[in-house]
């Protein structure tokens, strides 16, 4: 197989993660000090999932910037709990990192024994990338042209408008809960195993609304099979320029985007954290990385460590509030 691959453009092998040449050459050129051996990045979701794919885009750059091979280790389980809790218990020597999504803060409040504290158990390195939020889409038969219309409808029929919930704490669930909390409305959650199943029922009109990824929604909206009422990000998205944000429609402060961040176990030295942040900041400026992010509806951010720590703490509080609200909802 090696020979076949040799005929393939380099980009395909770039990932071939040991990049044996890099191991010998650059590592020694860097001299003493961290890092002196390969770095493991734990991704607590299966290979091929969104964080894994994003890491695969930036890892080759980090590898050349830090001069050590970067090995991805996928430890899926419990919606990310297993791999994250695993990293939390490791020594903060800089050789094991955690790369994951907003589920880092969103999943623990929905579980009694999550196994880690998203704020206290980690050194917060950087928010690497984020998307433009979800699109709130409805079936065209629903008599709501904008957010106000939808809210009016929800007040008329409390507890009867159904929304697709593709998993507690996921990007389809959090904005729906936030909307209910901010407007005092009551929507009915219908759980789905994944986005595709939920989208099918929405297209067929069996459920009423769905906070779905903009990329999945865009063609259906253009073709009129679905109506987009709002975006959950802070800014409009160029793919659906006519669709206003939630904040524009009278819900200031409503901002839910999916983001991807990097952590070390708590107690990692500040210098190391800053060195990794600087490398990520340089990596997301790479034109090829930017092009790749752009096509996937993402933007590189590289938020500085201090701000990222505050951001994680704030996001964790929002998720806890939502979990508490869901948990105290009376049984109908």
């Amino acid at each position, binding site marked *: 197989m090696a020979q076949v691959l040799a005929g393939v453009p380099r980009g395909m092998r770039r990932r071939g*993660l040991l990049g044996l040449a890099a191991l010998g050459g650059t590592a020694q050129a860097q001299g003493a000090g961290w890092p002196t051996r390969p770095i493991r990045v734990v991704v607590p979701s299966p290979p091929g999932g969104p964080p894994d794919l994003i890491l695969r885009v930036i890892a080759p750059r980090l590898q050349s910037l830090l001069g050590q091979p970067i090995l*991805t280790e996928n430890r899926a389980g419990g919606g990310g709990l297993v791999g994250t809790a695993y990293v939390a218990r490791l020594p903060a020597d800089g050789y094991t990192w955690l790369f994951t999504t907003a589920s880092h803060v969103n999943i623990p409040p929905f579980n009694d024994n999550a196994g880690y504290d998203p704020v206290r158990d980690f050194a917060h390195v950087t928010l690497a990338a984020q998307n433009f939020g979800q699109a709130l889409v409805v079936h065209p038969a629903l008599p709501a042209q904008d957010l106000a219309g939808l809210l009016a409808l929800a007040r008329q029929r409390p*507890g009867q408008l159904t929304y697709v919930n593709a998993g507690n704490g996921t990007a389809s669930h959090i904005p729906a809960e936030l909307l209910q909390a901010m407007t005092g409305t009551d929507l009915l959650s219908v759980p789905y195993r994944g986005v595709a199943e939920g989208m099918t029922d929405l297209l067929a009109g069996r459920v009423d609304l769905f906070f779905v990824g903009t990329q999945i929604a865009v063609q259906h909206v253009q073709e009129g099979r679905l109506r987009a009422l709002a975006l959950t990000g802070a800014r409009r998205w160029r793919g659906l320029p006519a669709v206003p944000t939630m904040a524009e429609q009278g819900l200031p402060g409503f901002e839910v985007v999916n983001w991807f961040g990097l952590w070390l176990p708590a107690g990692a030295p500040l210098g190391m954290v800053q060195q990794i942040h600087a490398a990520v900041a340089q990596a997301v400026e790479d034109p090829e990385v930017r092009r790749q992010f752009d096509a996937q509806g993402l933007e590189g951010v590289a938020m500085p460590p201090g701000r990222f720590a505050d951001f994680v703490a704030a996001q964790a509080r929002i998720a806890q509030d939502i979990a508490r609200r869901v948990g105290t*909802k009376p*049984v109908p």
Partner: protein
Amino acid sequence: MPPSRLSGPDLAVGLCVLLLGAVVLWQATAIPDSPIYAQVGPKAVPYAVGAGLLALGAGLTLSGLRGGWSWTLEEVREAPPRNLRAFLLLLAGLLVNLVLIVPLGFSLAAAGQFVLVAAAFGSRRTLRDAGLALVLCLAVWFGFVELLGVNIGAGLLEEAVLLALGQEPA
């Protein structure tokens, strides 16, 4: 002819199924009542499955008390005598892998398993097996890491070989 007295092993199987049913029912009661709107709650199906297992377990237990079903099985009647040595060697192989895969890494643990399992099935050339297994497992590990970017538990051996290779850049 069915034996007239009870069959110990078959009875034990029946009791195990009863026990499993009881565990499922017990665990079902431990599922918290959900505050989220649900027509059929999270407990309904576990209760049904637990109850079904109890019924099936009762049937098997009853059968065990009446002589069981093993005597009807041709395979059991004609089976060669049990081979405790082979079985324990194999179990040891599985155990070795479980215990060693984290501290020593995939290649060493899997090679240990390979040698013990081969010995269980009567292989006497332990050294040859060990050599074969090590080469095979290391090759698999490298294939997975280098071509697929999938890391199956790197350990001592893998890192040593990596370092050895790293000294002479390709």
